């Protein structure tokens, strides 16, 4: 048999296998198309994921470093400690405004010292290089260590957000002149300071543990307090939604009789899962704040709202996980004389645990990322400017949540806040990643073969 001639029939008289079949070709073609389509979808998805992660990292990573100016500051005793006994409670009487002239003088001295020309008439304008919070930082360090008074000490002074942005490449000469605060002359001074090695950019721990700051101090804003708010809310959700949701799922799946009433409950739970979260927000406002008189902006209320939102999302997968436990295990338990309760809690529930946990963790992650309902109950971003006093206060003292804080920053005019918003998203994603890893670990622990 040669390669060029294809026989129509095999030796036994059947249609030859070597003969191409038009219909089969068509079937094969559609298979190839579908494979390519699927591969294309996966590649597109990956492409966008890469873009997403790259842009988040590119925009957000600068928030994790902050610029400081290393300047020697003279701390005269006659100004800072008039009593003269280095007693912090007396020294507290000197406010931040008392420290501000010291910093201005220190800047002028440094310029003179390093042979940099002082371009401004007013020292106050030169001091715009520094953050409004720089004086407060010096004051805190002096109060912590009163012996510094009377000496000249090198301080790392927080630079203003524009200067920080200039070193990070966010601000340039054209854009800085559009603002009201700094001019390109400031940037010349900044360049000169950098040449002298007085500029340091270092890891910004305050961004992760700090509180939100007012509109004109973006360089001081941090996610720490909002992160605590999120944490307290999640505690409320874990304490309420998980036991209630799992118990409801067990009751409905294992104990409830099949009748119209339970059907109605089932339909309602499924529908609740599809209700927009903002509806839960306004429900929380009406029920918890206006009716039950719980405090506004409190993580307790936020946690309650998120509990309502999470319940259907916990119940539905938990029921599915319970339903997926093979009936043979139930029969084995019942056949040996286990009560229904023993069957559920000793056999069915342990086997359903991985599935239940998956649902719980997905719903917790979703609750963690929820913004809209929190805005309605007053957990807006700028509230998160004070730490709670202790554990219990954390539930009731006004606070925000991480996503609401990010939203707040994204609304503010200063691009420095925009950078912080991206940084906040990185913190949120790392938080989520940690929760997801925990989920995987827990699942592995509970997973059993049968």
């Amino acid at each position, binding site marked *: 048999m040669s390669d060029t001639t294809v026989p129509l029939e095999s030796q036994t008289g059947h249609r030859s296998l070597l003969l191409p079949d038009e219909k089969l070709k068509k079937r094969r073609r559609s298979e190839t198309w579908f494979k390519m389509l699927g591969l294309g979808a996966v590649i597109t998805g990956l492409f966008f994921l890469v873009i997403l992660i790259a842009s988040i990292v590119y925009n957000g990573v600068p928030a994790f470093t902050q610029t400081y100016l290393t300047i020697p500051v003279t701390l005269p005793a006659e100004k800072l400690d008039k009593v003269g006994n280095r007693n912090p409670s007396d020294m507290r009487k000197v406010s931040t405004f008392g420290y501000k002239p010291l910093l201005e003088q220190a800047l002028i001295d440094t310029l003179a010292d390093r042979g940099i020309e002082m371009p401004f008439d007013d020292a106050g304008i030169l001091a715009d290089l520094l953050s409004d919070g720089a004086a407060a930082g010096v004051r805190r360090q002096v109060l912590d260590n009163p012996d510094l008074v009377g000496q000249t000490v090198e301080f790392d002074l927080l630079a203003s957000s524009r200067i920080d942005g200039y070193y990070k490449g966010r601000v340039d000469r054209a854009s800085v002149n559009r603002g009201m605060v700094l001019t390109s002359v400031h940037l010349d001074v900044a360049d000169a300071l950098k040449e002298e090695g007085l500029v340091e950019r270092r890891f910004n721990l305050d961004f992760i543990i700090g509180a939100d700051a007012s509109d004109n101090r973006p360089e001081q804003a941090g996610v720490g307090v909002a992160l605590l708010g999120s944490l307290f809310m999640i505690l409320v959700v874990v304490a309420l939604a998980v036991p209630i949701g799992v118990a409801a799922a067990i009751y409905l799946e294992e104990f409830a*009789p099949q009748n119209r009433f339970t059907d109605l409950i089932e339909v309602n739970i499924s529908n609740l899962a599809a209700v927009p979260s903002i509806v839960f927000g306004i429900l929380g406002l009406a029920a918890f704040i206006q009716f039950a008189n719980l405090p506004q902006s409190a993580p307790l209320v936020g946690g309650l709202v998120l509990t309502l939102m999470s319940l259907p999302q916990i119940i539905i997968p938990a029921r599915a996980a319970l339903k997926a436990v093979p009936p043979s*295990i*139930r*029969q*084995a338990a019942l*056949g*040996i*004389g286990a009560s229904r309760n*023993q069957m559920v809690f000793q056999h069915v529930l342990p086997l359903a645990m991985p599935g239940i946990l998956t649902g719980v963790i997905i719903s917790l992650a979703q609750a963690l990322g929820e913004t809209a309902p929190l805005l309605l109950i007053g957990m807006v971003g700028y509230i998160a400017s004070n730490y709670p006093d202790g554990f219990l206060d954390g539930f009731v003292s006004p606070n925000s949540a991480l996503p609401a804080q990010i939203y707040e920053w994204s609304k503010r005019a200063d691009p420095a806040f925009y950078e912080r918003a991206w940084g906040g998203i990185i913190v949120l994603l790392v938080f989520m990643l940690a929760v997801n890893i925990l989920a995987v670990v827990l699942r592995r622990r509970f997973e059993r073969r*049968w």
Partner: protein
Amino acid sequence: MDAMAHTDQISMSQSETLTEASDNKIAARSVDVFYGKNHAIKNVDVDIDDKTVTAFIGPSGCGKSTFLRCLNRMNDTIDIARVEGDILLDGEDIYDKRVDPVQLRARVGMVFQKPNPFPKSIYDNVAYGPRIHGLTRNKSELDDIVEASLRRAALWDEAKDRLKESGTGMSGGQQQRLCIARAVATQPEVLLMDEPCSALDPIATAQIEELIDELRQNFCVVIVTHSMQQAARVSQKTAFFHLGEMVEYGDTEKIFNSPEDKRTESYITGRIG
């Protein structure tokens, strides 16, 4: 422990014999079972002897498994199932309102079609029943029960070195014997077996059949099987079910050699089923 349980059961069945004047372990009287509107079991009367293997045979869907499940009230777990008539265990109606099916199932153990060990260790599988029923006071008593039960299920030699390993890691035949050991461990009086060999290979089947013959010395065994050869091999009494009715019931030898009913004969000879 083993021997004590044995004599307990003998003395119990003797006293029952005196009071009831019969050695029927189970007596069913005009039992009907409905699944919703489906009439699955029609007016079945049967007396099942103690220390005997009784086989229920019949074509698929004839109701033999349904009837078996009435004997330990496993049908209770199906919402739409309804049982009418009387089923007496040692003269007591098991469908009496005062009877808790959990208590009943401790006395009427069950082995299922598909081996269904718990995903726990071999030891815990066997010990589960005695634990929940509070049959033992301490660990060594429990150890004794586990060993005795595994021995009865002819599994001790294979399992004694791997008691801590998962029961689901055993072969199918071993798993089924583990399920038998688990059922035996609660020290029941009756063992119900719902096609216990249908998921097993011929060698495992032979082992289980041999085991069933040994279990007869201590238990009243009722086995549902779709294999006539199996019924002939292991049982002393056979009941033939067809379309929800019990057509014929008697000594296995008689059912297979000289059936009275035409339908039984047709089934035995392979014309229906």
